[in-house]
């Protein structure tokens, strides 16, 4: 039972890591394509092959995403009882509002997608709770 739980934990963490990685990757690719008018293959090359600064920043953004996501999980689990669909709507609204905040499109996309991911995770939790109160 214990090992099974641990396995599940690893799978969850891997899944979260992958989804946050995916968000960072998509945001960087969108931003680079918009800036250079290039194909996504060239954007990938610019991200990983051209210089170490871009790649490192990408990894840091991924780490940031992962941490924000994990923190949101901790906060969520603490105030589980207070949660409702309202918070999801707020998160989704924030995901849209982000595009009007003056910052680089890379961050706009990244945070927008991240908010959507957090909202989705909450919807999933709420749905589980409904099934098994």
């Amino acid at each position, binding site marked *: 039972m214990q090992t099974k739980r641990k396995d599940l934990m690893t799978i969850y963490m891997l899944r979260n890591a992958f989804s946050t990685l995916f968000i960072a990757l998509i945001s960087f690719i969108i931003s680079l394509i918009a800036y250079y*008018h290039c194909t996504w293959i060239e954007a990938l090359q610019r991200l990983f092959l051209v*210089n170490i600064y*871009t790649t490192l*920043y990408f990894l*840091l953004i991924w780490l*940031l995403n992962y941490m*924000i996501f994990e923190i949101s999980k901790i906060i969520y*689990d603490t105030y589980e009882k207070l949660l409702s669909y309202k918070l999801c709507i707020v998160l989704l609204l924030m995901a849209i509002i982000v595009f009007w905040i003056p910052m*680089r499109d890379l961050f706009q996309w990244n945070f927008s997608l991240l908010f959507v991911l957090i909202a989705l995770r909450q919807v999933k939790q709420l749905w589980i709770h409904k099934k098994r109160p």
Partner: protein
Amino acid sequence: MVDGDDMNKEVKKQLILSFVLLALLMTTLFFWYPNFVFHTYVETLDYQYCLSGTNDELAIDGYEIYQDGKTQGYGHARMISLKPDFFQKGDDITLTLVLSDDVQLAQSMTVENDHDVIIMQEQKTDQILQEDDIQKAQLQVEIVRDQKEIYSQSITMKNQDMLTYTGANKDYSLTNVYVTSSWLKTGIFSSKNEDIAKEYPYMIVDYLYLKDQDGSEDINDYERFVYMNGKTEDFLTNQMKNIGYYDGEESLLDMNLCCVITLMKEENDTNPYTFILPLNPVQKGE
């Protein structure tokens, strides 16, 4: 089992640790940001291409594709008919530059008089152009006369060798003059003196090439082939652009080029300030 209080303590510890790490990470991201932007979002290079092509009926040259800041433009081609009375008044001409299946740049115009030479307009586009596609461009020429299509041919366009010329003296400079063997696009004029537009509100810019390539150089040996006259402010803000064609045997790239700049205090200044900027190639164009 842990009771509620312990759980809360555990969660608080986790949260505090997470926030400390998050703050560290944010600081790193913040201080690294200028470095990241400098290396990632490199200044995009503007481009300039000049295409030409010919078949039995038409010679087309000076078809340009360029990006200047955020503006992307194409067109400006000169079409010369190689057969008499090829163009007639009222003909509708459509030129479509086929770069790939997705990217096709179209423009059309109506012939206004029975000339043998037609210069097309310049058009702006938002389409994303791939540099590789420009090397294998095809120009589709369609002519409609009295609502009947009388001509439809595809011409293979060749990318012309191009050099970028500049000219400068102590106070004035001319940059981004694009030159091919038979074509010249005028450059950007700038001055160290910020009040030049107030001091000399009008100016004339002439582009010349040296007629005889013998050793002795004299201003009278130069032939003028581009002439521009306008407000100094328009020149400084790069709104004055012109194209020159050279139809001689030789290549413009082998000739001595220069630019004569005339600065005037009023529109018909009898005593203007005139100087010559010799033009020299700076780098190989694509």
